[in-house]
């Protein structure tokens, strides 16, 4: 079964992370062509394919959080571990 994701809405990373999360149940091969991110999924189980689609959405949301908060995350970690001795 093949799923084609619009690269304007999804990233390859989201597809790969979703595939990893379901690695115990399905095998997903992620590639790209000129117009889409292509996910080749086996076995063809409709429930698992739905689960994969939901997971891609979640992973895309996670990436969006990361992009928005990466700088502040680094700032918090820098504050947290300055002068603790843990950074040596």
């Amino acid at each position: 079964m093949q799923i084609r994701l619009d690269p304007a809405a999804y990233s390859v990373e989201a597809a790969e992370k979703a595939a990893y999360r379901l690695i115990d149940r399905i095998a997903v091969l992620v590639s790209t062509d000129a117009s889409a991110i292509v996910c080749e999924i086996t076995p063809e189980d409709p429930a698992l394919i739905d689960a994969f689609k939901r997971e891609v959405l979640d992973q895309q949301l996670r990436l969006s959080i990361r992009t928005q908060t990466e700088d502040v995350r680094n700032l918090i970690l820098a504050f947290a571990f300055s002068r603790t001795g843990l950074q040596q």
Partner: protein
Amino acid sequence: MTRFLPAEEFAPKAYALLPCRFEPLDEGLILSNMAGEPMFIDRSRFEALVQGRFSTTDPLFPELRAKHFVREPGEQHPIELLALKVRTKYAHLADFTNLHLFVVTLRCDHSCQYCQVSRQSEDKLRYDMTPETADKALDLVFLSPNPAIKIEIQGGEPLLNWPVVEHIILGAEARNRVARRALQIVIATTLSLVTDDMLYFCRDHNVLLSSSLDGPADLHDRNRPRPGRDSHAKFVAGLTKARDIVGADAVSALMTTAPASMDRVRDIIDEYVRLGFRDIFLRHVSPYGFAAKTRSYAAYNAQKWLEFYKEGLRYILELNAAGVPFVENYSRLLLTKMLTPRDPGFVDLSNPCGAGILAVVFNYDGEVYASDESRMLKEMGDASFRIGDVHKNTYKEIFTSDALLTVLDESFTLSAPMCSDCALEPWCGTDPVFHHGMTGDLLGRKPASEFCKRQMGAVKHLLRLMRDNSDAQRLFRRWAGC
């Protein structure tokens, strides 16, 4: 004209997202912030929040702000507070090793199913720790920078090598007169061989006893065979004597969850209550122990254990509701991580992994292991987690050994696939010895990992109870000490 402006007037006009992770929980989501504080939210609101469409007048907005999931653009205060909380969570790491286990003998009067290490042998020289080895290990213990030192003396059955037990206790006290740490010494014993003299010694040296109780007599004796089939009776007799001589709270009990325990959790808890214990640890026990010895691994997977744990917790909630205060310790550890900024520093629930840096094991022959499970693996022929030898290596060599650093590095969850994105990560651990034992890989593939299934299952169960049951929520706050 109204005297007060409506609340919306005070809401910030805009917000900026702070770092957070989420995980599906039933129809909704559970969020955790960088310091591991949880919050429930529905999916559509959370999507709006991430996409910048969330209304600052929404009733959830104050909670999102108070728990540091959002801040006003440019606001510095939440960043400093979060940093402080993160720092508090990891502060214990700077103290380094607290728990030091001494395996004073492999000999044992029991031959328990799950145990990979005990030996039924009369050959003392072969499997007993010598005073010289104990001294070398003690010297290393007091090189730990930790202001609190806990020494746990175990076996086999440590009482079979009592002279060395005494030697360790006296040696630790002597060293501590100079080192001045908060020293706590515990002997892990089945109590079957305990004598009055031993107990008076424990009383005089403030030594606590950690014992084993697997449930009612039939179950306990089945799990813990010994000549005479009287393990439970001996335990009860030893317990009574120890409470009389050492003190009412001097004895704690640890339960080994065996395949035969799976349908008996209420009986097990009843037995703990009957014998005057106020808590229990419904712990999962290294499955490769059972797997290797009894080939009964299927009887004891994450799913089975979770059913056992949930049923036990249900019963404990019932007991508390009926006025019998009783605590489940695995939940207490998780809840402390979820509801407070403290980290209880429990070896299996730590990241970086607790092996070596929170706890270390000195084996009877002087070999040093990163954890108790790792010396079990060694007895099964896998010495991957041997990090040194008290007779050959210095403190620095042991604690900066490649064997230890590789484990710490390769099992680190904040850079691990799936864990790094998981909202449960702040409450989880990494357990590289388990993953190595089961799959040969320190990290394990988390989607297929029994450890991950167990953690996800237990944490989500606790979260659901907190969300749906106000009595449970109150009780859990008490357990966590908040």
